[in-house]
């Protein structure tokens, strides 16, 4: 019963997101990734993974789980229902001092169970003017420690921060795009800084150029 309700809510959320943002996926030339992978995306809004989710074909959507902070998604029973039941989020504890479980272990369990993951390597929502915050190490650690062969797919979410800036409750209907890039594979013994720089560049390369440049 609860599962059915969660499914209905997830359909409603996707329909609502599409009605507001008319979101459109832009795939690389090789098309959508065919197997298990880790999507890594820029993060500026709570709706980010909903948009990625909305544009994934339904058969991929059911196997794709967002990675999110346990502190936020366990805060209230509504948050818990949306986070755990509707989106089946992989919840990680962000606070180093207090945490009981290692985030890398939690994520790698989800990968072992066959899920694809949506990861925001900036670690928190970007509320600055910069296009990206420096990546944390999670993406590198996860790929290096557990599954070095897994494709890492960069995903740029554009415009959602204008739809619903922090602190606003009414979304403004604006057109959003979700651009997927070609997958990266981590090289054996690739250094942390080199890999993170490579991943950052791959993600930034997908960002559309600012409006109003003319031609």
């Amino acid at each position, binding site marked *: 019963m609860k599962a059915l309700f969660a499914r209905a809510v997830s359909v409603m959320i996707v329909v609502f997101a599409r009605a507001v943002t008319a979101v459109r996926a832009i795939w690389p030339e090789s098309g959508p990734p065919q197997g298990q992978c880790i999507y890594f995306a820029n993060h500026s809004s709570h709706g980010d993974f909903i948009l990625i989710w909305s544009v994934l074909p339904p058969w991929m959507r059911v196997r794709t789980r967002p990675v999110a902070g346990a502190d936020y998604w366990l805060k209230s029973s509504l948050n818990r229902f949306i986070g755990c039941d509707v989106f089946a989020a992989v919840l990680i504890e962000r606070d180093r001092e207090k945490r009981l479980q290692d985030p890398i272990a939690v994520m790698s369990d989800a990968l072992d169970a066959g899920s694809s993951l949506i990861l925001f390597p900036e670690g928190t929502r970007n509320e600055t003017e910069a296009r990206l915050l420096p990546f944390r190490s999670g993406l590198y650690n996860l790929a290096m420690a557990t599954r070095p062969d897994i494709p890492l797919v960069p995903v740029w979410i554009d415009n959602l921060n204008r739809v619903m800036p922090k602190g606003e409750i*009414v979304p403004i209907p604006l*057109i959003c795009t979700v651009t997927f890039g070609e997958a990266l594979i981590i090289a054996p013994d690739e250094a942390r800084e080199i890999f993170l720089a490579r991943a950052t560049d791959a993600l930034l390369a997908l960002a559309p150029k600012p409006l109003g440049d003319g031609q």
Partner: protein
Amino acid sequence: MSAAGSDLLLLLFGVGGVLILASSIGFVLKQRLSPDGSNAVIENLNARINAWWIMVALIGIAFLAGRVGVVILFGFCSFAALREFVTLTNTRRADHWALACAFFIILPVQYYLVATEWYGLYSIFIPVYAFLFMPIMAVFRGDTERFLVRIAEVQWALMICVFCASHVPALLSLDIPGYEDRNVLLIAFLVIVVQLSDVLQYVWGKLFGKTKIAPRLSPSKTVEGFVGGVASATLIGAGLWWITPFSVLQAGLLAFTIAIMGFFGGLVMSAIKRDRGVKDWGHLIGGHGGLIDRLDSVVFSAPIFFHLVRFGWSLT
């Protein structure tokens, strides 16, 4: 069935016939020139024709549903158009309330006023009330960066996407003696003439176009396409006099006016796209681009057509 109903059905069958012809031509061209789907022009032509089937079906259903159907259809068109327009503007966080107000209050109120035929208010609601209240809402946040640009853009978006577009369903509120219950055919006349003018400009341009008419604004528009398209749309408009309260000559002159306004509407909206560095307003309609790419000529001709008919033929 009423006279308006049978004229409307006749018209829909006529448009359906034209589309069947277009689809057949598209099919033959594809077989001859692009059997493997590699000719971009042919593929785009067929995508456009397929999108036309859907647009005609939607408008047909709205017409048969009557006033409420037409108002709702154009209300949604305004919503999608406003969304495309605002996406390309410089709005900042400080505009959030003003924009929410534009989408969720001003747009529905304007269409409600049109539905209730309150001419005295819907004709000034956006040019006067929204014009003054939108910048007041924006000023509350105290962000002065590019202030004039931002408020001007939002007002322009509302005028084009909501105010002008709402003059299409507003045609239903005109009170023309001897033309009672037939006003929906005025919308059909406007939409058919302006869209055929666009299509025929494209066809004439593809067949005979040599001289670019506005190379910096719209490289695909040609003098030959413009003259051929406007002339043939004028003749078609004159030939549609039987669905209007106009004489043949009047119908031709109004069709000419609509076609010219539509052409310049397309140019103005192209200039905005060039400035913003985009090729299309969006991706809503396969082969055509965004909704505004299809609606630009309608929004420029609708208010002029509305006021000409109101001045010349309507009692209200």
